[in-house]
């Protein structure tokens, strides 16, 4: 663009802005007339009471009465009336010369005329032939959530949103139509205002522990939920194919608010509230714990010294057996006699807190025919329910759209600064996992010593006890901060070349900077090492620059009843990540915690890049809105693909038939609308390593001479130049129907998705020097049904709208590796195995089966057992029937993290100014591998235990409930082997949100010179119904690893939030 044309554009923009200001002031003087009318539901003809009627550009307005009638006195110059009613599409009507203006409003929930955002464009809901789930601003507004994806829970059939961690700003697991990929990631592609985001930022912060990684942060939480206009989820391959090699996990299109033509609206939306944990684990108190500890020691002692007595002193035990684990610690003895007033710490209370949350958004929006603008600022602060954790966000958004003749230009900028106070919640006690520590540390220890320092007596207690650090000290003293600075934005220019033909150039960028600083002070001991620790710290800096250039041509034409539109485009996107990390130790003290105070022991920088070039095209045709067809193709070339497979092609077709428009159905009154749809398409998953096709070398140093580090290099993987995207072919058949004048709507979809060329680390003979090679091999099938049912009922001034959705998904592995052998991986511990085998879902639990405990010696003798099994130990099932218990061959499939079905139920009630919303979410038929039970449900008396431990076997005469093994500090019978003892039903039904609001009536608003004022209270996660004994049945310690999902090895509990909110507009 030349400088001259820029200048002209700016001139026009200035004129446009002035024109806008003029309109704002235009309501100063006029003659008075009056207009009246009636407002009804377009579909049912019912009167709509309480509709706001406003003279556009003024504060003058009225509200309809019970009969839907209104009367309004018009200021002079009034030209347009704006009708708005919650749940309906607003309607603007020119008054003209009329004195009576009757209006029919269209229900937004099943509005077939509603505009839906699709990839690279928008479409009328009526014309859509693919499967797209849609959520509007009002459906997600005002919930006390960190990011919008939390508000999607339960809203869209086939989109399972699981909040696996309750940490403020932690990532969620979002799965569209199941899990298609085994290793390449299953996150959908997020496209924000047209910019497809890179998934890499999710892992930018790294982890403090490689074996038990931190839950990744949610980079989407930089988006202010109040700025969102709509969210569309492209579910089937035909809708997603326009995103080619990134479409196979579904695509989430997020559109932010833009200014609208009309008077300037200033809005302030806020809520403040407090959060508490949804649940505390039911653990033993100090007295019960001491009893268990004592019993465990005695059983360990008596196993070794059958002639011993439980009353034997430690001296006798020392002489007779010697093992420290059989000695009775003096610290538990006072509890055994029931002495009162002893330390009895509830460690959960010590690490949990009631935490405040607040959100404030101030926005200004408006515009005229030529210029529209939207500016907002947001402050959000959420303290965590676990001490010393939290998340803060400061964000602004500014967008301007300018139209001048055939040229339109605009930009949208969203700078955000977010600050995370991180805490290590994932992982067991040995990984500094705060939750794991708090539930395991014995309640006999105080939090603080009398002198106010942290008590670390549980570290190196002796007596064969596992060393446990003080969780309060770890949570409070370890400093782990993350600053995230993001600039997400785009700009476009569009030129109408000819009638129906336009060209658009769009450039966008997503620039992210992450700075994580970690410091572990001397005041926090190291496990098994007493006294002040040597402080350690690290600093990580990651910069992402992702830029995108898109050129698209759009053409649309109507000839008679034939409607045709076409899209052609060329896009280029590149992502460059530079990172730096420094690790230091030997800080002289904790006074200065930046790395300059310590000795830097390791450091490095890294550069990673990927690029993507694409050609895309789409043609849509319909005949009179009755017969619809669409075809699209995208060609993607990526640096990630091997040299032998650089380009991939992703075609799709879809067709629809609006049956209800056929003459033979016109006479039906019960059927308002019926559209049949079918689609088929190919999509890909390009989330493969940046340089996975090459044989890479890594530093493998060696020590020589006088302890000199000598650099060495060695290949760490083999080369595969055929490496490429994973491919999903999906068929979708469905219909959208509505009945009884649109009072009831139903959408049903069936899909069948075959994902092939799965990226797998295929085991190769280790004699090659490598254990695995990344290859495109393997197939997975996902198929399922989705149902969405909606209804809207009006009883006078009382309104009820409800939508319910239910989705099933069956996941099945079709092919794996050259030999077809199952993939068996271990989770957080060696015996926690997961099996991925042909014919079954990905990552089923593969463990031993436990059938209660042996009640007496006779039972032990009569059944296969381990060499050390005694009465009171677990009866493992001899699965292969070889009359012996073998922990490799007697394993079997014991459950899956995948639910049988998921559902959501959204209810909204409105009466006069009151509104009540209830959202229910349900997940049924999933299992959780609760590994925390390894420590707190093992009856060892080593750490604290679930209260159920009281039901343990104690003797043949007192066998407990037959399920809980005996207390024993030194386990016999391999009770600790991962088994069905550790696997639980994760089904749950959760009341996700209850919200009650009251909106001031228009008459009052006018006096206050306001256009909207609503006060509300919200309860988030108030109730969860589940049998799961851990914190959260949605848990998954490694949500990004499909092969071993569903493990609970310590997790940040979900908060229950009560908030009070206010929405006002002027």
């Amino acid at each position: 663009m030349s400088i001259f044309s820029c200048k002209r554009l700016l001139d026009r923009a200035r004129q446009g802005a002035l024109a806008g200001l003029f309109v704002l002031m235009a309501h100063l003087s006029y003659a008075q007339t009056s207009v009246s009318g009636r407002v009804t539901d377009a579909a049912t003809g019912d009167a709509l009471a309480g509709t706001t009627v406003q003279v556009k550009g003024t504060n003058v307005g009225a509200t309809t009465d019970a009969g839907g009638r209104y009367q309004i006195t018009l200021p002079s110059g009034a030209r347009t009336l704006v009708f708005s009613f919650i749940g309906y599409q607003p309607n603007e009507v020119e008054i003209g010369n009329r004195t009576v203006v009757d209006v029919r409003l269209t229900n937004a929930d099943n509005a077939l005329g509603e505009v839906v955002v699709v990839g690279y464009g928008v479409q009328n809901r009526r014309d859509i032939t693919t499967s797209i789930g849609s959520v509007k601003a009002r459906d997600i507004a005002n919930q006390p959530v960190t990011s919008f994806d939390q508000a999607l829970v339960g809203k869209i059939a086939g989109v399972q949103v699981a909040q696996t961690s309750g940490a403020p700003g932690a990532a969620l697991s979002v799965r569209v139509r199941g899990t298609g990929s085994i290793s390449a990631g299953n996150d959908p592609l997020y496209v924000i205002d047209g910019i497809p985001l890179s998934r890499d930022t999710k892992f930018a912060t790294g982890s403090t522990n490689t074996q038990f990684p931190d839950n990744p942060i949610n980079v989407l939480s930089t988006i202010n939920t109040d700025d969102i206009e709509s969210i569309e989820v492209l579910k089937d391959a035909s809708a997603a194919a326009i995103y080619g090699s990134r479409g196979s996990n579904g695509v989430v299109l997020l559109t932010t608010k833009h200014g609208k033509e009309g008077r300037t609206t200033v809005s302030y939306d806020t809520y403040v509230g407090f959060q508490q944990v949804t649940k505390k684990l039911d653990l033993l108190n100090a007295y019960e714990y001491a009893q268990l500890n004592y019993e465990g020691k005695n059983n360990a002692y008596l196993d070794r010294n059958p002639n011993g007595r439980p009353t034997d002193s430690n001296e006798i035990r020392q002489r007779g057996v010697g093992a420290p684990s059989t000695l009775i610690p003096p610290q538990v003895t006072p509890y055994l006699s029931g002495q009162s007033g002893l330390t009895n710490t509830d460690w959960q209370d010590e690490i949990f807190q009631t935490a405040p949350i607040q959100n404030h958004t101030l926005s200004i929006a408006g515009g005229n025919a030529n210029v529209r603008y939207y500016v907002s600022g947001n402050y959000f602060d959420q303290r965590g329910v676990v001490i010393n954790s939290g998340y803060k966000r400061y964000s602004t958004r500014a967008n301007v759209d300018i139209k001048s003749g055939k040229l339109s230009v605009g930009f949208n900028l969203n700078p955000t600064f977010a600050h995370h106070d991180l805490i290590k919640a994932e992982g067991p006690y040995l990984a500094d996992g705060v939750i794991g520590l708090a539930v395991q540390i014995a309640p006999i220890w105080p939090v603080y010593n009398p002198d106010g320092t942290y008590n670390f007596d549980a570290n190196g207690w002796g007596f064969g006890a596992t060393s446990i650090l003080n969780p309060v000290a770890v949570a409070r003293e370890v400093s782990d901060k993350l600053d995230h600075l993001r600039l997400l934005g785009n700009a476009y220019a569009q030129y109408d070349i000819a009638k129906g033909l336009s060209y658009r150039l769009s450039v966008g960028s997503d620039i992210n900077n992450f700075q994580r600083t970690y410091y572990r002070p001397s005041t926090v001991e190291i496990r098994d090492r007493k006294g002040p620790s040597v402080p350690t710290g690290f600093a990580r800096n990651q910069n992402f620059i992702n830029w995108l250039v898109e050129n698209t041509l759009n053409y649309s034409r109507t000839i008679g009843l034939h409607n045709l539109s076409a899209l052609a485009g060329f896009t280029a996107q590149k992502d460059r990540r530079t990172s730096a990390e420094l690790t230091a130790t030997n800080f002289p003290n904790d006074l200065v915690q930046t790395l300059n105070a310590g000795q830097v022991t390791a450091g490095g920088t890294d550069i990673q890049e990927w690029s993507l070039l694409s050609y895309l095209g789409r043609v849509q045709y319909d005949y009179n809105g009755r017969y619809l067809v669409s075809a699209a193709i995208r060609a993607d070339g990526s640096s990630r693909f091997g040299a032998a497979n650089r380009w991939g092609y992703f075609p799709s077709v879809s067709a629809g038939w609006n049956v209800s428009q056929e003459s033979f159905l016109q006479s039906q009154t019960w059927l308002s609308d019926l559209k049949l749809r079918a689609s088929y398409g190919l999509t890909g998953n390009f989330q493969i390593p940046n340089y996975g096709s090459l044989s890479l070398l890594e530093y493998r140093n060696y020590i020589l001479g006088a302890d000199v580090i000598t650099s060495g290099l060695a290949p760490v993987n083999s080369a595969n130049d055929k490496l490429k995207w994973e491919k999903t072919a999906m068929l979708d058949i469905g219909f959208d129907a509505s009945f009884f004048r649109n009072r009831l709507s139903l959408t049903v979809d069936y899909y069948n998705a075959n994902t092939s060329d799965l990226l797998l680390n295929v085991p190769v003979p280790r004699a090659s020097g490598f254990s695995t090679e990344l290859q495109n091999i393997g197939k997975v099938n996902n198929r399922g049904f989705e149902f969405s049912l909606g209804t809207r009922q009006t009883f006078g001034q009382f309104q009820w709208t409800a939508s319910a959705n239910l989705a099933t998904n069956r996941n099945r592995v079709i092919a794996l590796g050259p030999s077809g052998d199952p993939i068996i991986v271990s989770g957080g511990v060696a015996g926690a195995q997961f099996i991925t085998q042909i014919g079954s879902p990905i990552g089923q639990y593969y463990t031993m089966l436990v059938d209660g405990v042996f009640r007496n010696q006779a039972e032990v003798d009569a059944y296969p057992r381990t060499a050390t099994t005694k009465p009171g130990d677990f009866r493992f099932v001899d699965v292969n029937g070889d009359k012996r218990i073998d922990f490799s061959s007697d394993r079997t499939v014991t459950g899956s993290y995948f639910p049988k079905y998921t559902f959501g139920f959204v209810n909204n009630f409105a009466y006069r100014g009151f509104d009540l919303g209830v959202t229910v979410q349900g997940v049924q038929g999933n299992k959780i591998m609760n590994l925390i039970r390894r420590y707190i449900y093992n009856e060892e008396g080593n750490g604290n235990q679930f209260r159920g431990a009281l039901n343990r076997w104690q003797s043949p005469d007192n066998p407990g409930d037959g399920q809980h093994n005996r207390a024993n500090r030194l386990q016999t019978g391999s009770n600790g082997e991962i088994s069905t003892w550790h696997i639980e039903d994760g089904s749950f039904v959760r009341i996700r949100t209850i919200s009650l609001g009251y909106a001031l009536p228009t008459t009052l608003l006018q006096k206050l010179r306001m256009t909207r004022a609503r006060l509300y209270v919200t309860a988030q996660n108030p109730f969860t119904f589940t049998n799961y004994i851990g914190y959260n049945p949605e848990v998954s310690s490694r949500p990004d690893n499909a092969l071993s999902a569903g493990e609970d090895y310590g997790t940040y509990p979900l908060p229950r939030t009560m908030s009070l909110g206010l929405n006002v507009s002027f």
Partner: protein
Amino acid sequence: MKNAFILLCGLGLAACQNDFLDLKPQSQPNVDNFYQTANDFGNAVNGAYDALQSSNQYGGDFNTLIEARGDNVLDNDPSSNAGLRYNIDRFIEPTTNTILRDTWGSLYTGINRCNLILDKIDAVAMDARLKARYKGEAQFIRALSYFNLVRLWGKVPLVLQAGTTTDARSYVRNEVTEVYAAIEKDLTDAAANLPASYTGADIGRATSGAAKGLLGKVYVTEKKYAQAVPVLREVITSGTYRLLPNVADVFNVANKNNAEIVFAVKFRKGVGGSLTEGHGLWYGTNIGDNIEPTLRAAYPAGDKRLPLTVQIPVPSNVNVVPRKFYDEFSATNDVGNDFPVLRYADVLLLYAEALNEVEYQAAGEAFQRLNEVRTRAGVATYTASQLATKEAFRTAVINERRLELALENDRWFDLVRTGTAVDALKVTNITVPPYRVVYPIPQSEIDTYNNPTAFPQNQGY
């Protein structure tokens, strides 16, 4: 500018597509641009040594596979890692035991690094002496790896050229004799290629003495005693190595690279980060003594080697560790003892054993060498009347190896090669099924080949 470039590309200039899409890693070398200079090979050789440091080899797991398996060390922790190590100690490990799998893999990882060097180095011009040394080092590491493989598993695939993963699917389990022949050749070549000693920051690399000493050990293992005698004699008469007067000094972390060390895998504590160069406590424990009482009982009174097997506490830590491998923890929570793979006392004992096997000589040189080791330990020397026969001498020298080389990953192999494993373990109340003198082939490999003819499991498993 770049965007303009992309726009132009969009107009159909296909040529720029390749530049845009062909991104090579900038922070990581890849095989396509490596193995091209002398410096590359220097790095590659160091990378080959690195494999020996692996926690699956000398860094840790060998202690379980070769020492705990024997009668010196007891694993008393059945619950940790579902009995992963305990099962090996008690001869009940399943074929799926991950230590077996990972050690097998680690040894071949090292072999592959050596193969890549030896495949590619001839095509690159560099100083002839340096090239010979690099080749010798790769040959030495490869031979050592195969020596460990063949002793642990018996018949194993003999891979002497780097192959693709597809090639690897057609590997078979070669005969034990073929593997030993390759080891002998590698060590013979290495002895010719390697220098006798190094200076400065090269100290610690494999020397010709190390290659010869290891070759002697290989010959003794194969019972090729007549061939063992001359190579071991060369090591002894070279004068490069000697016994330190105080046996404890050999293991002192402040006295690394001492004159008794013929070859050690070297470590350094406190490096931290992902490229840690240290290791965890060897034989460390916090749940009671894990040294077999029978080992301590085998030491004569006043034996200076007995205290080396005694568990002593580590400062600021709940663990105890045998004095032989005592080190204090670094800030990054690791320790840095070197692991003595071959030391002069071992060479002397091997030499004495080989001489005796060739021909028993009352008070001959074999006695002299054996007694050198005993004298240094502060115990009485053997006289010809005490060890009057070849068999008596053999028993004495094997027992001496147990006392001298306790915890140094020799005992299990000594028991197996002398056919005494079953009897020796009986003393510690462990019944050894005879087939368990070699380990089961890792189940992962049996599964990957899925070919019982070319790639069968070891008998009995």
